[in-house]
Structures are given as structure tokens and as C-alpha cells.
């Protein structure tokens, strides 16, 4: 087998940051870890982590504006930990710098007997939910956190689900039953108690109404609850409550083989289809050291852009519907149907094809695929223009959405907003341009932006993105490279079969890879992509086994929902609906 010896040297900007931190922190840095994604990783003690993060956020040049992710790893069963400080639970901070276009990882080792470390909410407000999730999943306490409640699991849950000792299968647990007392107890736990969230029940001149918007409400796009504190129709405060759609995708990632986890990724952002496969397979390929053929890259880009169009069309239609315009969604389903027909003829499935493979795609393109794609390219621009006049130029819609739910670029950084929500604040930053993956550097397209950062602009950016996606698809059709649809690398799954009946080595490799699954060399990697709703990243830890040791899925919707109270205070209930619609989220993407 080929060895996966890819340890890219840190980018120059990293070298500066690292030198600065070495000078600043010296021996307080416990270790420096090299991962195959080239993101510098520093280990520090929990007493120093806040100082280090503050340094990275405030004084470093370039500064790390965004807290991209906080998660943890249960290290107790991990074998390959060469050069890493002893740790039973490791908390991982992933930071992003837009100014320097680079990432940074900070790790904190913790021992099971004392799982506490300081909260960083006062540096990045979006740490709130990430810390709650880490507490929920691992039982790690963040000191100074205002309300460290469970976030995705029910408040009555016993244990912490992502710890290795927690069962992953229903068969490992008692058969489920729900007695009357248990039901009453669970229901009581779901009651919203305003005092727990520091809310008052009345002000000097009025009594507040607390309204449960959801988990079943026509406009919350899935099972999502927001507890509203209302003064008449004016929103005083809100508490989003998520977790109703949680399926434990990260836990599944630990028990499925590298290959069989691919279909699960489809269901993360269920409107994104194969777009979800992409960061996952890219991450595995990076660890395995697989270079995919040009044809694979272009096929992947084409399908991803088709799914971007599908997702944006659905967003566009529901956005109009949520401000009371009933018809556009029906028109948009016509195009969506066309795109799905193409996807179906290529992948065999429509919404969740699960079609990308480690080292390639499942099949080659079918004969005559380009004809239908060209038809779509001819058909769509006129329809998009029609929607502009129907939706975007409508006076009532403008009045409903302009100036509503406004935030600026700095706030977007604070809350971890990426994707169209970030570009609508006038900040031109698209992962496909800034850090091209899967061959995006070979395509010509523009990054649309808007300047006001309100609901209308978020929609306008996405509308323009659809046109850019069409442009990219056109380039794919015109320049589809010839070649194989799968890499020749032995870890490609399933491997190519041509030679398997000719020499015994290939046959053994094929047999193992299909029956057992590929063995990915021990490493760590984070790969992010510009998904339909923002940056979606997979942080994979391989322990040299047939499945992942830790699968962390960072989704854009999770970050975006956290911001809802911040941008909707003082608006009316109807505005809240417009704000929710403009965020473009699906609950599966939030809860995973």
C-alpha cells in the first residue's frame, strides 16, 4: 500500500503566528501537533487556554475573528496519540481568520476526574451553544457559562452520548417504554421556564406573553421551537430550542465504516444532497492521500452546484411564502423538478443520492447526460428573471424584509455566520474562491455580495448565486475532462475492479476493501466546503481503523440559529418569521 505521507508545511502566515505565540507563551505550550490538513495545532493547559484564545482573537496579526467550532474527543480508547500530551478528554477549538485566510486549532487536555475549563463566551458570543453541546455530549463543564443546559439531547437524558462508553445502538439498551409518570415527567421538563433564562414575567407597564413558536409551527421549517417573550406583538427576547431532529449522526460516524457513513452525510443538510458527501470524502481522501482524477472533480462540482440551485430555489420559494406570497414556491418546484430529473438520471436517486465515493464517484456519467443539462441552462435564466419581477421587485415584499434582521460583518464574525448570510453584510468571502477545493480554482464565477445585511439582501445574494451556479455548470458541461470516474489508489472504495481478477494482490485488496472497508492511516483532518447554507466542515480523527474514531460535523445552520434572538429583538412576530425564512436552515443540519 502507498503510505499517506502528506504533511504540508504551514503557510507563511502561520509561521508568523506560531513564532509570535511561541515567544509569548513559551513553555506554557504543551505540544505542537501536525495534522495532514496543515492547520497548526497547539496544546495548552486549561488554565492557559483563555489567555491563548484571547491572544489569537485580539493581539495576533492576522487576528482570528471567528470561533468556527468547539468540540471534544473522548481519547480514552485511542491508540495512536504519538507526541500528544496525556489526555482523557480533549477539547478542540477551531478558529478562523478571514484577514489571514487561515485556520488555527487549540487543544486542551482534560482528565476524567475533573472535566472543567473556562468558558470563552466573553470572547466569542457564539461559544455559548458550542459549549452547551460539548457539555451535553461529553459532560465537560465550562465555568462561567450562563446556562449550561443540554442543547440537542432532551433535558432528562442520562449520560453523555458521545462518550465511548455510551451505547450507540438501540440493541445495547433496554427496550424503550414510556410509562404515564415518565411521560408526565418528560413533558414537564419541556416546559419553558422564563426565569431559567433570566427573563422577567412583567415589566413596569405590561405583562409579557410567552409564546411557544414550535416545535410544530408552519414557518419553523422542521421541528424547531422558539420561546418568545412578547410585549403585545413586539418581541422582547427569544430562546431558540433545538434538538428535536437530533439523530446522533456523529455517533453513527464512529460505528459505520468510512465508506458506509457516506449516505448518512446526505441527510445532514437534507436539501444539499451530494454536497454533504463532498467535505466528508475530501477529508477521508486527504487522510488516505488519494488524488482524484480531473473528471471526478468536475463531476463533483457540477452535481454540487445543481444541489446548490435546488436548495436555493426551495429557500427562495419558502422565503416568499413566509411573507405571504403563495405562488412562487410552486413555480420554483418546476425547476427543482427539472434539476432533480437530471440528478436522478445521473445518480439514480433524487434528494439523497449518496453518490460520491472515497476516491471518486459511484458511476460514470450516463450517455447523453449533457443534453438535459444544456436544456436546463437554456430554461432557467428566463425563469429566474421572472422570479425577480415577481418576488424581489415586489413592493410589499421589500417593505416586509428590508431593514429587518440586520447585522453587520463584525457581528457575523462574532456569531459564526458564514455563507450567504456573511456575504449579505458586504464581505466578499467565498470558500470556493478563497480556498478552492475540488478544482474550483479552474472555474470562472463571481461572488455576489450585498451591503445591508438584512433579510432582503440575504435573499438577493442567494438569487444571484443561482446564476453563478448555472455559469459553473455550463463550464462543467463545456469542458468535461475525459478519464476515469475513480482514482486508481488502493484505498478507493469500492476499488476499481478491472485488474482484480488478474493479480492476487489486487484481488485481496478488493476483497478486504469491499467486505471490511478501507483502513485509513491514523491522522486528523478538517475539511470545510462552501455548502448550500454556509461553511460545512468535517473534522475526522482516524485511529488507523476501518471506521472513524471521532466524526465532528460542523454545520452552518447551527451557528446561524443561535443568532436569532440577537437580530430579532424589538421586531414584530411577523418580522421574526421573515428573519427565520431569510436564514435558510434545515433542522437536520442544525441537530445532526
Amino acid at each position, binding site marked *: 500500500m502507498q503510505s499517506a505521507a502528506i504533511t504540508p508545511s504551514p503557510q507563511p502566515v502561520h509561521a508568523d503566528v506560531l513564532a509570535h505565540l511561541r515567544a509569548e507563551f513559551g513553555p506554557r505550550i504543551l505540544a505542537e501537533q501536525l495534522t495532514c490538513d496543515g492547520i497548526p495545532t497547539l496544546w495548552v493547559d486549561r488554565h492557559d487556554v483563555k489567555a491563548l484564545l484571547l491572544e489569537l482573537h485580539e493581539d495576533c496579526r492576522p487576528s482570528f475573528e471567528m470561533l468556527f467550532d468547539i468540540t471534544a474527543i473522548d481519547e480514552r480508547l485511542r491508540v495512536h496519540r504519538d507526541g500528544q500530551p496525556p489526555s482523557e478528554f480533549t477539547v478542540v477549538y477551531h478558529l478562523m481568520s478571514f484577514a489571514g485566510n487561515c485556520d488555527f486549532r487549540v487543544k486542551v487536555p482534560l482528565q476524567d476526574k475533573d472535566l472543567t475549563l473556562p468558558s470563552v463566551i466573553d470572547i466569542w458570543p457564539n461559544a455559548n451553544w458550542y459549549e452547551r453541546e460539548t457539555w451535553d455530549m461529553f459532560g465537560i463543564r465550562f465555568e462561567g457559562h450562563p446556562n449550561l443546559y443540554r442543547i440537542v439531547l432532551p433535558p432528562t437524558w442520562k449520560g453523555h452520548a458521545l462518550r465511548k462508553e455510551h451505547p450507540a445502538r438501540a440493541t445495547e439498551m433496554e427496550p424503550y417504554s414510556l410509562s404515564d409518570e415518565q411521560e408526565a415527567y418528560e413533558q414537564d421538563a419541556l416546559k419553558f421556564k422564563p426565569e431559567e433564562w433570566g427573563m422577567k414575567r412583567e415589566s413596569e407597564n405590561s405583562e409579557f406573553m410567552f409564546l*411557544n413558536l414550535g416545535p410544530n409551527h*408552519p*414557518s419553523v421549517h422542521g421541528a424547531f421551537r422558539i420561546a418568545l417573550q412578547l410585549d403585545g406583538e413586539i418581541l422582547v427576547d427569544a430562546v431558540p430550542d433545538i434538538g428535536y431532529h437530533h439523530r446522533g449522526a456523529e455517533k453513527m460516524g464512529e460505528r459505520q465504516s468510512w465508506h458506509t457513513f457516506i449516505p448518512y452525510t446526505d441527510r445532514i443538510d437534507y436539501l444539499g444532497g451530494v454536497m454533504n458527501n463532498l467535505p466528508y470524502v475530501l477529508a477521508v481522501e486527504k487522510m488516505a492521500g488519494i488524488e482524484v482524477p480531473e473528471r471526478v472533480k468536475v463531476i463533483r462540482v457540477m452535481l454540487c452546484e445543481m444541489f446548490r440551485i435546488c436548495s436555493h430555489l426551495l429557500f427562495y420559494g419558502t422565503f416568499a411564502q413566509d*411573507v405571504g*406570497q403563495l*405562488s412562487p414556491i*410552486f413555480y420554483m418546484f*418546476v425547476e427543482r423538478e427539472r434539476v432533480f430529473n437530471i440528478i436522478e438520471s445521473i445518480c439514480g436517486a433524487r434528494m439523497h443520492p449518496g453518490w460520491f465515493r472515497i476516491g471518486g464517484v459511484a458511476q460514470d456519467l450516463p450517455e447523453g447526460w449533457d443534453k438535459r443539462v444544456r436544456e436546463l441552462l437554456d430554461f432557467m435564466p428566463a425563469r429566474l428573471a421572472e422570479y425577480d419581477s415577481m418576488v424581489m421587485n415586489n413592493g410589499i415584499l421589500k417593505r416586509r424584509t428590508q431593514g429587518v434582521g440586520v447585522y453587520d460583518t463584525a457581528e457575523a464574525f462574532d456569531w459564526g455566520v458564514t455563507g450567504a448570510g456573511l456575504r449579505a453584510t458586504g464581505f466578499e468571502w467565498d470558500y470556493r474562491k478563497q480556498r478552492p477545493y475540488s478544482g474550483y480554482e479552474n472555474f470562472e464565477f463571481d461572488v455576489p455580495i450585498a451591503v445591508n445585511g438584512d433579510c432582503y439582501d440575504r435573499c438577493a445574494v442567494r438569487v444571484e448565486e443561482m446564476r453563478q451556479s448555472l455559469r459553473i455548470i455550463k463550464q462543467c458541461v463545456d469542458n468535461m475532462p475525459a478519464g476515469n470516474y475513480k482514482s486508481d489508489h488502493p484505498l478507493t472504495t469500492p476499488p476499481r475492479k478491472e485488474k482484480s481478477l488478474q493479480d492476487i494482490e489486487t484481488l485481496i485488496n478488493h476483497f478486504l476493501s469491499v467486505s471490511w472497508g478501507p483502513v485509513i492511516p491514523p491522522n486528523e483532518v478538517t475539511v470545510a466546503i462552501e455548502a448550500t447554507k454556509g461553511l460545512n466542515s468535517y473534522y475526522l480523527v482516524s485511529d488507523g481503523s476501518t471506521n472513524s474514531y471521532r466524526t465532528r460535523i460542523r454545520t452552518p445552520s447551527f451557528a446561524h440559529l443561535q443568532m436569532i434572538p440577537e437580530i430579532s429583538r424589538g421586531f414584530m412576530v*411577523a418580522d421574526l418569521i421573515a428573519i427565520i425564512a431569510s436564514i435558510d436552515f434545515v433542522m437536520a443540519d442544525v441537530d445532526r
Partner: protein
Amino acid sequence: MQFEVGSALSIGSILLTVIVVAAMLIWVERRLLSLWQERLGPNRVGPFGLLQVVADMIKIFTKEDWVPPFADKLSFVLAPTVIMIVILLSFSVVPFAPGVGVIDSNIGVLFVLAMASLGAYSVMLGGLSSDNKYALLGSLRAAAQMVSYEVFMGISILGVVALAGSFNLREIVLAQADGSWFVIPQFIGFVIFLIAGVAESHRLPFDIPEAEQEIVAGYHTEYSGMKFGMFFVGEYLGLVLISSLITVLFFGGWMGPFLPPIVWFAIKASMFIAFFILLRAAIPRPRYDQLMTYGWLVLLPLSLVNLMVTGAIILSTQ
């Protein structure tokens, strides 16, 4: 028994026709909306799906007639009947054709306005008695919306009343007998009446009291079975009423060449019904405070100016 204004036959057939038309509108609206939205709509039950209404009726009549335990029983039950009653009563003064009508009242216009005001109670009571927060928000919005839009509705038709010199709807139609429909001199009045009419019957774009994307179903969130059915049919009755009134007040009622008068009336009223359905398919919903601002700052001054100008012209030509 003769077919003339006020006869039992006349009353009976008007009542029946109006209710059947309102029920059929459920099918008409769904088919028209789907026509405009590139889909098929209900087309399975009977020819063109016409029997869909019958199926819906059977369903709605046989559903459990449930009153939530937390609701205020009496007003919860009364609320949906109020809307049916007041709208059906309003039809009593509408002159459908020569000899077809329930009464020729000298205060026809005022009677319609009075009934419209009572209609607001139905929505308010329904929302308040449900003891549901969405319903409360809905009735809050409904109260504000209906009470304000009644004002402009009333003022907008005073121009017509002045031109015809009568509050009697039949005389208003007769005053347009020479073919000079009031829509021409009273175009502004017509537009304001139309907008206020949509707001009064709270249909999209002004379905703010029941905006499903915001407050689930607004004031009738807790209603089910036939009580919901009454609100539902009441809304369509309101639609028929507004269309009939527009026909009578601004478009010469039953007047028209060749065809029988009642057919002309039906054609004109259907045009407006279709227009209201088209509005629903095309326009987004403004926010509740935007609707109020628009009403008080645009429609009210405009209707007052319209009335004053009309008055001045009438006085100067006398």
C-alpha cells in the same frame, strides 16, 4: 307564490344560492389557484373534481364537534354563528335583479355597514374565547384591522350615495340605468372600497388575523368540525358579498344588454370573485402595523378628499 322582492320563494332561493355558491367557491378557488400556480388542484372527485365540495362537506359535518376544555363555551360556540348570520343578513338588502331580493330597504347601505361591524365581534369573540395565544394575537389583529377598515369602507361609498341620492341599493342600481356606472366618477371610491373589502373579509393579502405562516390559523386555531366550517364558509360568503356590493355600487348591478339581468349580475360578481382569488395568488402579506399605517395615512385622507370633491361637484352642478 310569486317571484318578487320579499316573497318566500325569493328569500328561499337567494339563501340557498348564496350558500351553495359560497361552498362551491372552495372548489373554484382551489382550481383557479392551481391554474395560476402550474398545478392541477382537486380533480379526482366527480367531473373536474366538482364533487370535492360534497366530499369536504361530508368530512366537515361528520368530524367531532370538539370544544376545548379550556375555552369559554358559550362565546366559543356563538362566535362562528355570528359571522354566518351577519353576512347572510347583509344579503337581504342586495338587489340581485329586478324583482329578486329580500327587502328594498331605504337604509340598505347603512345596514350592510352595520352588519360588517357586527362581523368583527365574531372574529374577536372566537379568538378571545379560545384561550389560545395564537388565537389571541389573531383576534387582536382582527379587531384593529376590521374596525379601522370599516371607517374607510363607509366613507368610500358615500360618494356613490351622494351621486345616487339614496341609501337604497336598488335605487343606486337604477341611478346607473343610463349606462353611466359609478365606477367612472367614483374610481377612487371604488379602489378604496375594494381594498377595504379585502381587509374586511380578511383574505390574503390582508389575512393578517389568520396569517398561517405567523400565527398558525389566528383566531380560529382552536376550531374544528362544523364550527371551523362556518368560519370557512363565512369567509367565502363575505367574498361573495363584497363582490356583489361592488357590482351593485359601482358596476350597474344587473344592468347589461341581451342577457337576462340575473346573468349579468352573476357575471359581474364572478369577475370580482376571480379577481380576489387572483390577488391571493399574487401578492405577499404586509405587516400588521404597515396595514394600519397605510389605512390611516393613505386611505382615510384619500376617501375624505374623494367625498369632498364629489360633494363640491354635485353642489356646483345643481
